[in-house]
């Protein structure tokens, strides 16, 4: 008989198995015991220790879907979902983002397009957390319009020489290497869009000519280091080329799918976490002689939040299910990126309203969540870029 419930589902209607749930418990303990207690201090320091990467690696959280032969767990995509969901309990958008860059943005192209040697040299130590990765796409003059990047690699006898710069690079101050998008030949007039002539490179940050120009000061995500990088006659060997020369645009578009999906999962998890804090506060806080949660307007506000979070989560799960089934689901990914980015900032704003003056003061983490979540609508492709993708796929 046809069933709508997988045999090994722990809760009816949810995709997770026993194995996922035990991973959930492990991530939650780590987030609550080792991240949350330090989150405020790290924000104040505008830095969190590199040790966090090594600890995440030691616990197996950086290679959940990486095959075992490269030190990973060989799990399915739902294990990534579980990790992103539970990391929200660490109350540090900065740490969640830094780890996501490591495991779901900078390294998947190595597993997907890299040589065996590149996997050994970069992927394996990234899974253990010994090497920290960053992803270099955006430049001072080109963000979502990837085809317009200007950082150039010139072929020389024993490799390539790179000149140019990259902007808004998460983990960029501390990274050991950068998965970088570089122009290797002028744009082909034929394609008119500049897609051709772009390639990916794995670039060690300790090479001569690699400079961290500055650490950027941001309105939110302050514990995360964001860098502007510059490259002056940076010499890399032939083996630094990742994948096929000239295929970089397609390869990075592939990367962006995983990037947007992980950010969507994290955004919903963050929104759920904020909803729960709002719910809690609405029961505790009294005004005019009763809990504010008993006022109908606040009650309905909270239920609007719960409903939007609930709905967004279901679309994210559908997109994850497609990804896990091996589909290149560009449309769904753009939709969940757009939807959840707006959701998380809206929820933060609504919960700030519920918290009143405390929401606006730094005694409570609400104002930080509000500042942090604002990034979702900009990073990984702006809302406007997602709408461009969605409307193009609709034939508009």
């Amino acid at each position: 008989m046809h069933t709508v419930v997988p045999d090994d589902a722990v809760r009816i209607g949810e995709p997770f198995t026993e194995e996922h749930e035990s991973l959930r418990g492990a991530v939650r303990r780590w987030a609550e015991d080792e991240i949350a207690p330090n989150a405020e201090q790290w924000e104040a320091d505008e830095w969190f220790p590199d040790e966090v990467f090594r600890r995440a690696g030691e616990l197996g959280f950086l290679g959940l879907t990486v095959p075992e032969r490269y030190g990973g767990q060989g799990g399915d995509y739902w294990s990534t979902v579980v990790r992103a969901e539970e990391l929200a309990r660490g109350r540090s958008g900065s740490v969640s983002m830094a780890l996501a860059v490591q495991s779901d943005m900078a390294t998947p192209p190595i597993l997907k397009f890299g040589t065996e040697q590149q996997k050994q040299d970069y992927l394996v130590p990234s899974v253990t957390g010994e090497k920290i990765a960053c992803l270099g796409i955006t430049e001072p003059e080109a963000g979502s319009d990837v085809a317009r990047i200007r950082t150039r690699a010139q072929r020389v006898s024993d490799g390539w020489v790179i000149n140019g710069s990259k902007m808004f690079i998460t983990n960029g101050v501390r990274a050991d290497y950068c998965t970088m998008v570089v122009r290797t030949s002028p744009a082909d007039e034929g394609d008119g869009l500049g897609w051709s002539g772009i390639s990916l490179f794995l670039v060690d940050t300790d090479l001569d000519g690699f400079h961290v120009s500055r650490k950027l000061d941001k309105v939110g995500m302050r514990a995360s280091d964001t860098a502007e990088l510059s490259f002056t006659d940076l010499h890399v060997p032939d083996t630094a080329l990742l994948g096929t020369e000239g295929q970089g645009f397609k390869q990075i578009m592939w990367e962006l799918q995983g990037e947007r999906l992980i950010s969507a999962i994290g955004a919903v998890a963050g929104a759920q976490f904020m909803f729960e804090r709002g719910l809690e506060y609405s029961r505790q806080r009294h005004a005019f002689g009763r809990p504010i949660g008993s006022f109908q307007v606040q009650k309905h506000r909270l239920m609007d939040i719960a409903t939007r979070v609930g709905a967004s989560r279901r679309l994210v799960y559908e997109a994850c299910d497609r990804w896990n089934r091996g589909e290149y689901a560009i449309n769904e990914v753009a939709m969940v990126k757009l939807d959840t980015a707006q959701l998380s900032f809206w929820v933060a704003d609504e919960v700030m309203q519920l918290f009143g003056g405390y929401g606006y003061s730094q005694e409570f983490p609400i104002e930080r969540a509000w500042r942090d979540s604002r990034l979702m609508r900009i990073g990984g492709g702006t809302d406007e870029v997602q709408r461009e993708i969605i409307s193009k796929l609709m034939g508009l």
Partner: protein
Amino acid sequence: MAADLDLTPTTAAQGTRLPLYAEEHEALRASARAFVANELAPHVEAWEAAEDFPRDEVFRTVGAGGWLGLKFDERWGGSGPDYLAHAVWLEELVRTGSAGLNADLGAHADLALLYVDRNGDDQHKERYLRPGIAGETVGALGITEPGAGSDVAGITTRARRDGDDWVITGEKTFITNGAWCDWIVLAVKTDPEAADQHRAISLFVVDTDLPGVQQQRLKMLGWRLSHTGQLRFDDVRVPASAMLGAEGSGFLQIMQNFAWERVSMSIGASTAAQRTLEAAIAYAKERHAFGRPIASFQVWRHRFADLATRIATARALTYHALRLHVANETGHDVDPIALMRATAMAKLSTQRLAFEVADECVQVHGGYGYMMEYPAQRWWRDARLGPIGGGTDEIMKEILAKTYGL
């Protein structure tokens, strides 16, 4: 660029962990679509203009096609129970383009027959479910009254015992099919003095040709093809066997059956929103302004992308509610709070959305959108019922808030 670059995800391809429709449902979808296109859709504009449709002909045709019995047992002339098959039918029924027609069919199959199936005994099923599935009789569900809607415990229609019979007095309103139904599942107070008012209500199936029953059609903003009406019951005498379920169990039955009402409304609204968006886009591609199709202006492209995203989100939640409902019906141990939340959230997130999409559809049509000769205004008027009927949006939030202890 080489076309052969493999762009599949690196995670090993697995089967779905969110199963819903099976292959057989997709086959059924094709025949439902053909049925709607051939038997119903061609008549809709004429029926809408006349604000009427041939009741017996339509119900019998739909019944003969097997579309009223998908979620009921073969024993009573159905082909189920398969709620997923019925969900497919509801999605395809939206293609009639007439919410009023669909409402009459839905009030019969998704409300009236549902109650008889789930709460009736064999005698009730023989008398109402079997002919109802065939489309030979038309049913309705009577809960709302002039003085009580979502506040079900506040109804005042009452039945008093008289020997072996019950005698019913009162009024019902906003009853879909109420103007022309052959029978109605009626919520009445059988014990108005009960300390627990939730135990005061019982359900009866009442034939509308009994002495003392009056039916009248209501004029509405939208749903003009629907035969929504009010009914009066003046000392209507029914036998004890007309009671559906146990005495005093009416409130509980109503609460339990709300789940499917909400899921079915969510399926209808999310699908209607999708169809309305498609119609808006089709028009935007055709209509030119300033030398190009208005669909090519960035503001409209982005607005359509936003709507498509919101519809996808609402539909994903609807499918989640449907999945939980089907799991619950097929013997899985579904958390009742999860089910209640999913169905209430689905209704809440689909109904207002369908109206907003219809409003944008009017907007993209410009002046034509405001003209009665185009259907956009009708979809807009029709969609406005969604956040009101089947429990208002505000009631959904009250229900949800209770599940969170607020």
